[in-house]
């Protein structure tokens, strides 16, 4: 028999504390679409995506209604396009971006990820062409997301790729400066990129994945904050336990939605990504959880420790709740998408240096950070290299998604709207890293890579 308290708790979590399924992402392999004729390949890509994902949005909406749980995004990720486009010599890969956009519109999804290249150990045919085309691809499409993996623990960091990505990020911002430099918000540079990540803009469908699969990302920072708020006098061990229990419940919802979606779509179920991903809505913020644990404002001393505790407790609670955990799993700390982080950035409580330290203990990395428009390409490349180094040494995924605010200066704000939120332009270090970046080459893999 269903318990009355459980019913009320569930409804409260959904209604007042913003518990939601952040995303159902269908991963689709495009390996069978490869053709040396780019028009034929694009036709194959369009047909495959629209065939596999034709019912995705409908099924998502049905599940949302039946279980009364909001499912915010229905999305698609595909095989990194650099692999698909490698066979089409001499043709611009932007055609693939336009095809992805068309397919996304036909399926009714708001974002499609996979305009990607994996270059952690070097560039293969097609990789460079694709990377160079990213600024154009992101400016002529609105739903296509792009990512590039420039390093891993096993291979080290491709410094040449870091340098190129510094240039590409800046160009993305410049090409979309009339849309608040939004192009750069759809581009992520990874180290140790997971192949089953359901979260944009970094989602792509790895080559080791099945032909078609459903991945689910859950989220509920508000629920965690409310649970912590109920224990004002608890010691920190008890707080960790409270977070663990609530993370379990959140993840169970993801497991239920994932299995149900997979059953109805006739597609295997991949993973639940048990993340706490914030939105700009007040009450849906990871920063507020840290403040609830006891910081005056996120970014002050103690932030890294509380975040480490939060991230670990979320993983521990979630791992028993689902049969398949994967993706990034943990707390996300994007600046522009989190009300508490936006406030902390505005008041100067948080700096890029502190954010970098925090990324050593949580998911993803420097995410949705607005930097001054006069930032040099080499400085962006160095930010990418720093963040990749944290990921490489610590055997974890890190990423950089910075948005150079062309024409704006420190203290100005960029407004992206919707889930992307808004963010103040943050201070950066203007001393030049150019000599280091321009050396190029490969940063060797660390000792941790020699596990075989």
């Amino acid at each position, binding site marked *: 028999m269903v318990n009355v308290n459980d019913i009320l708790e569930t409804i409260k979590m959904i209604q007042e504390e913003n518990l939601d399924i952040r995303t159902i992402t269908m991963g689709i392999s495009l390996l069978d679409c490869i053709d040396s004729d780019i028009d034929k390949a694009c036709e194959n890509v369009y047909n495959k995506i629209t065939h596999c994902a034709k019912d995705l949005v409908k099924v998502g909406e049905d599940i949302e209604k039946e279980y*009364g749980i909001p499912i915010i995004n229905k999305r698609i990720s595909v095989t990194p396009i650099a692999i698909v486009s490698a066979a089409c010599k001499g043709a611009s890969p932007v055609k693939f971006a336009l095809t992805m956009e068309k397919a996304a519109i036909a399926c009714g999804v708001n974002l499609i990820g996979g305009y990607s290249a994996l270059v952690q150990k070097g560039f293969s045919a097609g990789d460079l062409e694709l990377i160079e085309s990213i600024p154009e691809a992101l400016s002529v499409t609105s739903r296509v997301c792009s990512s590039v993996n420039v390093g891993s623990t096993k291979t080290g960091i491709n410094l040449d790729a870091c340098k190129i990505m510094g240039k590409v990020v800046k160009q993305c911002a410049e090409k979309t400066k009339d849309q608040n430099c939004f192009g750069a918000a759809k581009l992520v540079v990874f180290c140790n990129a997971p192949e089953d990540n359901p979260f944009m803009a970094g989602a792509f469908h790895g080559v080791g994945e099945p032909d078609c699969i459903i991945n689910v990302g859950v989220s509920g920072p508000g629920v965690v904050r409310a649970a912590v708020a109920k224990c004002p006098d608890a010691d920190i061990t008890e707080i960790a336990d409270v977070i663990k229990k609530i993370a379990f419940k959140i993840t169970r*919802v993801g497991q239920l939605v994932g299995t149900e979606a997979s059953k109805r779509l006739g597609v295997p179920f991949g993973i639940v990504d048990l993340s706490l991903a914030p939105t700009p809505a007040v009450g849906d913020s990871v920063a507020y959880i840290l403040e609830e644990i006891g910081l005056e404002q996120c970014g002050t001393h103690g932030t890294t420790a509380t975040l480490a505790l939060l991230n670990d407790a979320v993983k521990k609670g979630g791992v028993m709740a689902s049969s398949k955990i994967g993706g990034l799993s943990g707390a996300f700390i994007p600046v522009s998408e989190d009300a508490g982080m936006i406030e902390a950035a505005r008041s100067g409580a948080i700096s890029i240096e502190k954010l970098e330290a925090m990324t050593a203990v949580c998911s993803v990395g420097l995410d949705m950070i607005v930097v001054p428009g006069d930032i040099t390409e080499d400085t962006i490349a160095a930010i990418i290299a720093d963040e990749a180094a944290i990921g490489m040494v610590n055997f974890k995924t890190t990423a950089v998604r910075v948005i150079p605010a062309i024409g704006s200066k420190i203290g100005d704000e960029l407004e992206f709207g919707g889930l992307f939120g808004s963010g103040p332009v943050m201070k950066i270090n203007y001393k030049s890293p150019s000599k280091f970046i321009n050396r190029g080459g490969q940063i060797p893999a660390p000792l941790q890579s020699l596990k075989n």
Partner: protein
Amino acid sequence: MRAVITVIGKDSVGILAKVSTICAQHNANVIDVTQTVMQDLFAMIMLTDISGLNSDFTKLVDKMNELGKTLGLEIHVMHEDIFNSMHNI
């Protein structure tokens, strides 16, 4: 298969009747009802068997949402699986 219907809002005559009428129209059998009125706040939880529904479950949800809007009440219809999976190991 069962569904939980919850109704919260200002009390008035006939809420229970209207909700159960919609259940009957869709052939959802009411198994259990708990209801309290705290001052003038009406709160009800109803457990229904939906295995014999004569329409899609989502149609029933839509109808209840419509009723909630016209009466100014918060009505939620949720499949019981969500409670079972969240609160039971």
